[in-house]
Structure formats: structure tokens, C-alpha cells
């Protein structure tokens, strides 16, 4: 974890004071709700269907036990005892009272947390690989760059009123767990032949109404030039991005309109003028690197007898390990994914008690390190194999051992019409009905990796465009219908899914997914995933299965 220094802490304290004064002006009637709206939106406070929603930033999805415990405490004290982890790796509380928010921000600041830039047309929370520092695949620790970007983007004087919101992802592994190609900027760490570190820079990816996979505008940007280059991109966007229509204001529209080549040319021209003045000095980059308390690993054998014995004795543990435990860079350690997709529950929700359990486990077994994934799960990145049986037992006791990571019931869903004022349709009940339908774990494992993503409206917060199966809720004369799209991916093989056919009524969605799965199981060859089979066969057999009887 990055350790905040006095400056970082004072910055957050000043922000909390500012917001307290602003709320006081609203509560005293000095300013109207209309005047207050842009102010609260700078602090992640939304007015939703039933109450205020407060979105708390979890920078690059990284939490300490102390921070997670504080979130649990806030959930109990100010909300209904639970919180919702989002696809931006933030945490939302959906039942907040306006008058409580200044106190909540103070409590957050006391554990180095905040709600800065979790809304508004500014640079939002940076996404980084949730396996950072733990996977053997990575070239460098992407959190260092994510933290440097967090600081750089915090109350950026020039880029806090962009045409539209702006999201950056950074990863250093070939397997992309950040959806970098569908971010406004995706940064992938690369090594040049001479060993120098740099970023491949992709710009203009995004979902929403007009999904795009971001084109690469620079193959190799030396890492020490990152901030001047970001400034150049943001400046071109701030000046030339559309402001006449909020649905055409994201950078993807500008990049598509200019063409990637012309956009790149403009960025490079601006970058040349900026020079190195905006780059962070190497000393600061070194300081940020050093401020990440290094994980302290013991020298362990690659094989743990205690773990192997326990696994042989417990089919439940064995299943959990098959699906939720991933290889670690150090012998004798593992990465543990904690699914927040228990069958029948709301995807991404965690109760205060569950948060406390995870915090305790991280402290006791996991080097005080917790990550949130953009797929709305949690990760304990450094767990000893020896400790896995205990960790699994504790998770199981808290309802947190659902062994379904990347399986069909590991569904991303936005809050949908159950909470959100923008939604056309509910998303959570659809996710629940699909998960119920596939609750047989043997069958789910046989189906293998299958990413279902559900959005309750065209804004695509549930990332349906990049679901292997994407589901979009639409309103048809007051009735909820769901449009299926297939073949999308947000990973290194990013693509936007193709719409399968006419939208289906809610009660046919789970059944349609079942039909799609049957086609896949029939057609697959070798080790193909659903996505691979779809890409090989095309949509025809899938379409036939879902719509045959209608004809």
C-alpha cells in the first residue's frame, strides 16, 4: 500500500473542510439544490431514486484492512449495513443523508480516503491490475503509475471541467484485467529491446452509447515522459472535445471524428511544445515507488503439504481453489479472489460484517492488502498456500466463498432501475435469475469462462458491450425488455459485442442464456471458451437457438 505522507493527509483534510462548508451553505438555504448540484457532484454525491448515493474512491482498487473496516463502520452507522463495489472499483453507499456527508468525509479522511472526482467531468479513479505486485506476469508494478496519476489528477487546475468524464487504466501484464482498451486512456507497460520501460498508449476506447475499442496512438512512451504526454492528450481533448451534446462529448468521439492518426498528430505537436516541464522528476517517481510498503515474502517451498492434504479432503476447498485461486509470483503463495457474486445476491454488494471478515483475513493472512476488481470482486493478493484452508473456511462462514470467478454466475450488473434514476430496466434481478438458473457448480465449471455483463440502460455502466454475453435493458412502452449481444470482450482481445436479435422480455432472459450455452457446448472444440466458439462460428447457430421458435 502507498503510505500517505503529511501532505497527502492535509490535502484530504482541506477537502473535507471545504465540503463541510458547502453542505452548510445548502442546509442553511444560502444556495439552492440547483446551485448545490455541481458542488456535490464534485464530491461523488448523487441524488438517486430514493436517497443520496455517496461514491467513495478506492484508488486503483487498493485498500488496507483499516480502510475496509472504516467502510464497514460507515455502512453500519450511516447506511443500511452494506455497500456496493462498482466497476470503477469504487464503493457506493445508496442510503445516505445529506447532513451526514461531512462527517462521513471526515471519517474517510482519517483513513486516507475520500470521494474526490468520483463524479463530474474530470479525471476519475484510475484502474490498475488487481493482481499488481502479486502476479509473475507483470513487467513493473502498475500501482506506482496509478498512484502518481492519482496525485497528478487530484484537483487538476486545467482538467477538472473537461467535456465529459475521463477514465484511465494502467496494466503491466499481457493478460489485461483492467479493460484498458475500453478506457479513455489505456496504458500498457512494455519493455523496449534495450530494457527501457515505456507505455503503449491507447486513446478513445469507451462504452456507453457508442462503444469503441481504443486505438493505439503511441507504441512506446518512455515512462518518465508520462505526465507531459497525458497533459498533451487532455489538452487536445479539453480544447476540441465536443461540448454541445453530452452524448458525443467523450474523447472517443473526438478520436473517431479526427481519426486516430490525426488525433495522434495533434497530441504529438502539443507534446513537443510542452516539453519536459510537466513531467514528474525521477526523484518523485522513486519516492512513490518507495512509499509502497513492500510485501515481505517468506522463502517457502512451492508445494504446501498442509494445503494439499486439506484440498484432498475437502471438495469444497478444491473447487474454490480451481476457480478462485490464482498463481502468485512467489513460491508458496497464492492470489485469492473473493467473489461478491453469491447466487441470489446483488452483484458487488458486501455487508458490513463481510467487509470486516475480509479486513481481518487480510490483516491476519494477507499482508494487510485488499484489492477491488473492475469485475466487482475482491482480491487478497498475497496469501500463503499453508493458510488457504483457514482463509477458505472463514470466507465460507461469511458467505464469501462462492467458487465462481470468471464463471457464468460471476456477472457484472449495474444498479439498474432498483436504484438509478437513469435506468430503463432492472439489472440486478436479471443477474440473480441467471445465477439461480446456473447454480449447479459442476455445470458452471463445465461451461468454463463466460462473462455476462448487464446494463440497465444505454449508458452501459454494466459494460454489456464487452460481455461475452451482454445484456442491455430497454424500455418498450413501459415494459422491461433485454437485448442480447455476443462476442464482446474488455480484455486484451477487446471487441464490442454484436446484437443477436430483437429484445426479449425479462422472463425469457435466463432461458435464452441457457440456449446460448447449449449451442456453445455442442459446437465447442478443444479448449475453446464460449467467446472463442462464438468468434469461430459466428452468430448464426446462436441466433437460431434463441429465435427459432419465434419464427
Amino acid at each position, binding site marked *: 500500500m502507498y503510505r500517505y505522507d503529511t501532505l497527502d493527509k492535509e*490535502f484530504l483534510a482541506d477537502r473535507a*473542510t471545504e465540503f463541510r462548508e458547502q453542505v452548510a451553505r445548502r442546509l442553511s438555504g444560502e444556495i439552492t439544490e440547483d446551485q448545490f448540484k455541481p*458542488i456535490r457532484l464534485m464530491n461523488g454525491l448523487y441524488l438517486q431514486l430514493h436517497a443520496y448515493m455517496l461514491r467513495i474512491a478506492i484508488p486503483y482498487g487498493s485498500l488496507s484492512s483499516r480502510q475496509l473496516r472504516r467502510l464497514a463502520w460507515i455502512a453500519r452507522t450511516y447506511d443500511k449495513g452494506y455497500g456496493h463495489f462498482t466497476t470503477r472499483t469504487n464503493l457506493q453507499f445508496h442510503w445516505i443523508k445529506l447532513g451526514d456527508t461531512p462527517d462521513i468525509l471526515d471519517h474517510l479522511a482519517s483513513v486516507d480516503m475520500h470521494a474526490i472526482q468520483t463524479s463530474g*467531468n474530470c479525471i476519475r479513479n484510475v484502474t490498475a491490475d488487481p493482481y499488481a505486485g502479486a502476479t509473475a506476469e507483470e513487467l513493473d508494478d502498475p500501482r506506482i503509475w496509478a498512484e502518481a496519476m492519482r496525485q*497528478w489528477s487530484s484537483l487538476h*487546475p486545467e482538467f477538472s471541467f473537461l467535456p465529459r468524464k475521463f477514465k484511465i487504466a494502467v496494466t503491466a501484464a499481457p493478460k489485461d484485467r483492467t479493460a484498458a482498451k475500453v478506457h479513455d486512456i489505456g496504458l500498457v507497460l512494455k519493455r523496449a529491446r534495450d530494457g527501457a520501460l515505456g507505455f503503449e498508449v491507447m486513446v478513445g476506447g469507451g462504452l456507453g452509447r457508442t462503444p469503441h475499442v481504443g486505438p493505439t496512438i503511441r507504441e512506446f512512451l518512455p515512462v518518465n515522459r508520462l505526465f507531459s504526454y497525458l497533459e498533451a492528450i487532455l489538452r487536445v481533448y479539453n480544447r476540441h472535445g465536443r461540448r454541445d451534446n453530452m452524448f458525443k462529448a467523450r474523447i472517443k468521439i473526438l478520436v473517431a471524428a479526427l481519426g486516430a492518426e490525426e488525433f495522434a498528430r495533434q497530441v504529438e505537436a502539443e507534446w513537443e511544445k510542452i516539453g519536459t516541464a510537466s513531467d514528474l522528476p525521477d526523484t518523485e517517481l522513486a519516492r512513490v515507488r518507495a512509499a509502497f510498503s513492500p510485501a515481505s515474502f517468506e522463502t517457502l517451498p512451492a508445494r504446501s503439504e498442509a494445503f494439499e492434504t486439506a484440498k484432498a479432503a475437502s471438495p469444497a476447498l478444491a473447487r474454490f481453489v480451481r476457480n478462485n485461486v490464482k498463481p502468485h509470483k512467489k513460491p508458496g503463495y497464492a492470489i485469492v479472489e473473493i467473489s461478491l457474486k453469491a447466487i441470489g445476491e446483488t452483484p458487488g454488494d458486501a455487508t458490513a460484517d463481510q467487509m470486516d471478515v475480509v479486513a481481518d483475513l487480510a490483516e491476519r493472512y494477507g499482508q494487510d492488502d485488499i484489492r477491488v476488481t473492475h469485475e466487482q470482486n475482491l482480491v487478497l493478493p498475497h496469501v500463503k498456500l499453508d493458510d488457504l484452508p483457514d482463509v477458505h473456511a472463514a470466507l465460507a462462514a461469511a458467505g464469501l466463498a462462492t467458487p465462481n470467478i470468471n464463471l457464468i454466475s460471476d456477472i457484472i450488473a449495474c444498479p439498474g432501475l432498483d436504484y438509478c434514476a437513469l435506468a430503463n430496466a432492472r439489472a440486478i434481478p436479471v443477474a440473480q435469475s441467471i445465477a439461480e438458473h446456473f447454480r449447479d457448480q459442476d455445470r458452471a465449471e463445465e461451461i468454463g469462462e463466460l462473462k455476462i455483463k448487464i446494463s440497465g440502460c444505454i449508458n452501459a455502466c454494466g459494460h454489456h458491450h464487452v460481455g461475452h454475453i451482454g445484456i442491455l435493458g430497454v424500455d418498450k412502452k413501459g415494459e422491461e425488455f433485454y437485448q442480447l449481444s455476443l462476442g464482446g470482450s474488455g480484455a486484451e482481445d477487446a471487441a464490442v459485442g454484436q446484437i443477436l436479435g430483437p429484445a426479449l422480455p425479462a422472463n425469457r432472459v435466463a432461458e435464452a442464456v441457457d440456449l446460448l450455452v447449449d449451442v456453445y457446448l455442442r459446437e465447442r472444440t478443444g479448449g475453446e471458451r464460449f467467446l472463442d466458439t462464438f468468434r469461430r462460428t459466428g452468430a448464426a447457430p446462436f441466433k437460431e437457438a434463441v429465435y427459432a421458435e419465434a419464427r
Partner: protein
Amino acid sequence: MPKLVKFRDGGMIALDDAFTHVDDEVSLPPGDVIISLTRFQAEGERLLSEGRSVGVRLEAGEEVEALAYDLPRIAVVAPAFPKFRDGRAYTAARLLRERYGYKGEVRAVGDVLREQAQFMVRCGFDAFEPADGSSPEQWEHAARRFRHVYQRAADGRTPAFAEREA
């Protein structure tokens, strides 16, 4: 005479505005004026030769580069905020200060709100026409809110990374 919030000697003060904003359709009064870029391009030469101080209002879509060669003789550049959430004027101000070394007044006009005071000051604005009626004291309070900043910008404040080195 309308009041202007002006950044001076590290603090904010209220000043009588010596300049008159003049729309394109209106004939020019005597004295110091702030006019549009179009009008400046047509009439600037003549006005300057009359010995007046001339300021230019820069609309959000207008490029600061268009003024580059005239900057030494322009007393005020006034990048406009058509709405507070239109952030193009921040870029204009930074470029004026950092790229062109402009030493004259950079004045925030339009939907100018105290919530944005710190961003404006940091980008190099040194004069403000607050649309929310905020006083110099309120403006200064808002502009000085944060003890630390994370970026180098036009105000010359020491960013956190340099503070840490000191």
C-alpha cells in the same frame, strides 16, 4: 463603476473596473475597452494608436494562438466561461501565462463562481468578475483553501513533489 475582484500582492481586493465591456454591435465609448477578438482584429490597430488600453474577450471556442503576436500590447485578455463547467478557458489562461509569457491581466468573465476560484488562480487568472456576487474575502478564502497542490501550473505554487524534496 462595476467592481472587479483582483489578485494583488498575494491577496484579493475589490477594484473599480477601469475597462468597459463593449459588444460588437455597440459603438465604442471613449476610454479603456474590452472587445471581441473579431473586433480587435478589425479595429485593434486604430484603438491602440489612440492611446487607449485595449482588452480582448476570448470566447470559449476561440484559440488563444490567434492573439499570440498582439499580446505585448493587449492590457487584458478575458477568456470566457459560457458555463462554469466549460473548462476551455483554463487551457487558454495557462497557455497565455506559460507558453506566451503574458504579463497583462487575465480576467475570468462569464459564469465565474467561487467554487472554481482555486482552479482559476492556478491557471493564471488574476482578475475575476464573479457571477455569484462573491466578495474578495470569499474569493480569497476559496482560492487559498488547499495547503498543497499536486501539479505545476501557472501560479508558480510549489507542487507537493517539490515540497517533499525541500
